[in-house]
Every structure is written in C-alpha cells, then in structure tokens.
C-alpha cells in the first residue's frame, strides 16, 4: 500500500490542492495517509466505483473527518444508507428536483441577470460579495422560507457547518461554536418559523403526514442551508474567476450559448467546491491489489479524480467545450448532490448573463482563506468591466 506523509487539511494543500492530488494519484489509486489516519482514493475510476458502492463505502458512520461531526449528522440522509436513507432522501429532494424547480427558472434567470447588469453598469466591485454570495443567499432564503434574523446568519452558519466536517484541527475547533448555533436553531425551528408555501414549510408537512420520521425536519433544514449556501457561493465565484482568467473561453460561450451547461460542468470539474469527502469501509475492500481494512475512514478525492489523465485528456486545461458531464464534483449515486438541479439553475443563469453582457473582466488579486471542506474565493476585486 502506497503511503504519503501529506496532511490533506494543511493550509497550503487546501488553498492549492492539485499538485498534491497529482502526486498522490501517481503513487496509487489508494494511498494511506497516516497524518490524517485515512485512506485516500485518488483516481477517477476507483472514486466513481466507490461512490456507486454504498454497501462497501458507507455513509452511515458519517461522511466527516472527526467523531463529533459524524455524531451530529447521524440520522440525516447525508449520513445514512438505504434503507433508512431512502425516505429521508425522498423528503429532502421532493421539492428540490428539477421537475419541482421548473417554475423557478425564469425568476432565477431574472435575478442573476439583474445582478450582472448592475455590475456591468457599476464597473468596479467585489465579485464574490456582489454575485457569488448575493445570488445563492437570496435564492436559498426565499426557497426554504427563512425570515427575520436567521437570514443574517446564513453565511457564517453555512461556512462553519462545512468547516467542521474536517478533522479536529484549529479551524474545526473554532467553527464548532458557530456551527452549533445553526444546529441548535435547526433543532428548535418549527413550521410557523418558515414562510408558508416554501420548501422548508413543506418538510414540516412531510413530517406531519408521517413521510419522514418525527424530528427529521430540522436536520433537513440544516442540510438545505449547509449545502446550499457555501458550496454554491464557491461554484459561482469560481465561474467568475475562471472566466476573468480565460476571456477566450467566455467568448466561446457568447458565440455559442448552447455551451452554458458544458461550461458549468467544466468549472465544476476544474475547481470543485468540495475536493475531499468521507466514507467508511464496512468490509475489507480490495482496490487495484491493495486492501483497505474494514472500518477505515476513506477520503474520496473528488478533485483528484477530476484531474485524472487516465479519464480526461489534458485535465489541467480549462476548456468550456469539453462537457465533462461525468465529473465527480456532485458525487454520484444514492448520495449524489441533492441540490444539483438548483445549483445548475443558478450557475447557468450567471454564465448565460456574463456571456451576453461581458466581453472581459479586469480583476485584481483573488484572496482565498483555507477552509477544511469548501474551496472558495473569499474576495475577487473587479477593476473594470469591458461590456460585450
């Protein structure tokens, strides 16, 4: 079994993971990382197979990298497997599937286009605050039915809720109190706290009619906020940064708007919001001749699989015509990202609007703050917008 002394959650790896991912991928499809006490899956085929095999690579013992978070998430669809998982997933997604969201497309397009149009007119702004944070915050708040003070907490709560999925390092320790505020709020939230007719309200109705076990509505609200805010902010920020760095690619989308969907797949492949996610083996799992013992914590390196040259030609090139529809950034299988339909609506709206309205973005230096789970840009100053 190949071994590496890399700490996957060290600042420099979190900020710029792809060189490390490449080294691990070349060591083997499974690499033991004693510093993190985990087995890393590094190559595309192995990752995809593991994500499809929930019976061996289980989520039921948690998907995080410390015992506290795994205990906190117990009983959610995120941290369970079939059969318990089935009803929870159905309730989580009932009003979140593309078919349920079809009516929202126009509204999301209009919101994204208004943000981009404003900014083209303004000329100079921070892209992360003005678009990447503004759009998902407004959409998730309205969709789930958050009102009052909680709307002001969404950003900090969402960031902390993802942070604590990491190992028990200082980032996780500092974030637990804030993540705990969200956890406590979700434990106490009632139907009447959410706006009628929203997805959040609907989850409580599902609980009332017995579609999900008593007490599961709060944790599902937790998932909507934890997953739907920070990770979408990352994806939209990445869209803007990558198109600012590659104006030729933005031009391709402007010339052929049918590339919008392909472009988003490529953004996700190239810079996944989540690079590393957890599983636990239920039995000895043999992969390419090496055995991961039963009961081991496994790190699925989604970002490394997305850059595997065995699967994608020239994987380190950002190419909007590639359409890597099988990228790993949404996971795959029974635990595949439940909000991907909503993420696509938001991201496609932003890409479409940027391509129509912007020829080129002149940007200052992007800043990043290391985060255990979600790799995102913290600020991206736009110095000048050259309109299309």
């Amino acid at each position, binding site marked *: 079994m190949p071994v590496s002394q890399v700490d996957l959650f060290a600042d420099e790896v979190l900020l710029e993971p792809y060189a490390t991912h490449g080294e691990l991928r070349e060591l083997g499809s499974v690499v033991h990382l004693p510093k993190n006490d985990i087995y890393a899956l590094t190559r595309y085929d192995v990752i995809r197979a593991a994500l499809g095999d929930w019976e061996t690579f289980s989520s039921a013992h948690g998907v995080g990298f410390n015992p506290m978070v795994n205990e906190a998430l117990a009983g959610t669809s995120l941290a369970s497997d079939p059969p318990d998982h089935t009803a929870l997933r159905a309730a989580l997604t009932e009003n979140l*599937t*593309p078919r349920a969201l079809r009516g929202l497309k126009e509204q999301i397009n209009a919101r994204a286009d208004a943000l981009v149009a404003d900014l083209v007119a303004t000329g100079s702004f921070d892209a992360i605050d003005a678009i990447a944070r503004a759009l998902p915050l407004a959409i998730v708040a309205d969709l789930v039915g958050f009102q009052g003070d909680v709307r002001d907490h969404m950003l900090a709560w969402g960031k902390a809720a993802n942070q604590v999925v990491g190992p028990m390092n200082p980032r996780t320790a500092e974030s637990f109190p804030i993540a705990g505020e969200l956890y406590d709020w979700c434990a106490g939230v009632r139907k009447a706290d959410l706006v009628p007719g929203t997805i959040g309200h609907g989850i409580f109705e599902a609980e009332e009619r017995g579609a999900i076990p008593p007490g599961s509505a709060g944790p599902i609200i937790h998932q909507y906020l934890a997953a739907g805010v920070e990770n979408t902010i990352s994806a939209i920020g990445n869209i803007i940064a990558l198109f600012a760095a590659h104006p030729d690619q933005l031009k391709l989308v402007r010339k052929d708007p049918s590339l919008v969907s392909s472009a988003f797949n490529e953004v996700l492949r190239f810079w996944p919001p989540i690079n590393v996610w957890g599983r636990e083996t239920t039995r000895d799992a043999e992969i390419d001749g090496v055995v991961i013992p039963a009961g081991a914590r496994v790190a699925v390196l989604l970002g490394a699989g997305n850059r595997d040259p065995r699967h994608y030609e020239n994987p380190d090139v950002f190419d909007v015509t590639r359409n890597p529809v*099988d990228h790993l950034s949404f996971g*795959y299988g029974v635990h*595949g990202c*439940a909000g991907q339909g909503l993420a696509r609506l938001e991201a496609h709206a932003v890409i479409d609007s940027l391509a129509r309205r912007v020829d080129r973005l002149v940007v200052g230096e992007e800043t990043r703050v290391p985060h255990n789970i979600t790799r995102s840009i913290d600020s991206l100053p736009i110095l000048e917008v050259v309109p299309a």
Partner: protein
Amino acid sequence: MRLLTIELDRPRCEGHGLCEEAAPDLMHLDGNGELVIDVPQVEAGTPEARAAAAAVRVCPVAGLRLA
C-alpha cells in the same frame, strides 16, 4: 442479435434530465418532468446501445441500468 433492456429505478429518478441529453432518441422528460423511456430495448453493439450506455453513465443518482 442480443437485446439489452434499459431499466429505470423510478423512485430514484429525480428528473435531472442528463440521460435525455445523452440519448434523446431513446428517452425524454415529459411535460411533468417525469422520465419516459421511448425505446426500452436496444440491440447490443449498435449506436442505440452506445447511446443507452451513455445515458446510464451520466445519470447522477445511478437510477438507470442496461441489462
């Protein structure tokens, strides 16, 4: 000639529609966003079988099978 059947795990389908993009001649989402398999059987080794395999492959929730 060997026939392969496109099998849909209906409860698992969330209507993401990536299969329709991969194999528009074999399946489509109806007006309610429900998946309809228009051509449930394909002949192994044909372009239709390759399209069916592509549709199975891109389903993000592993809800399709070709057997």
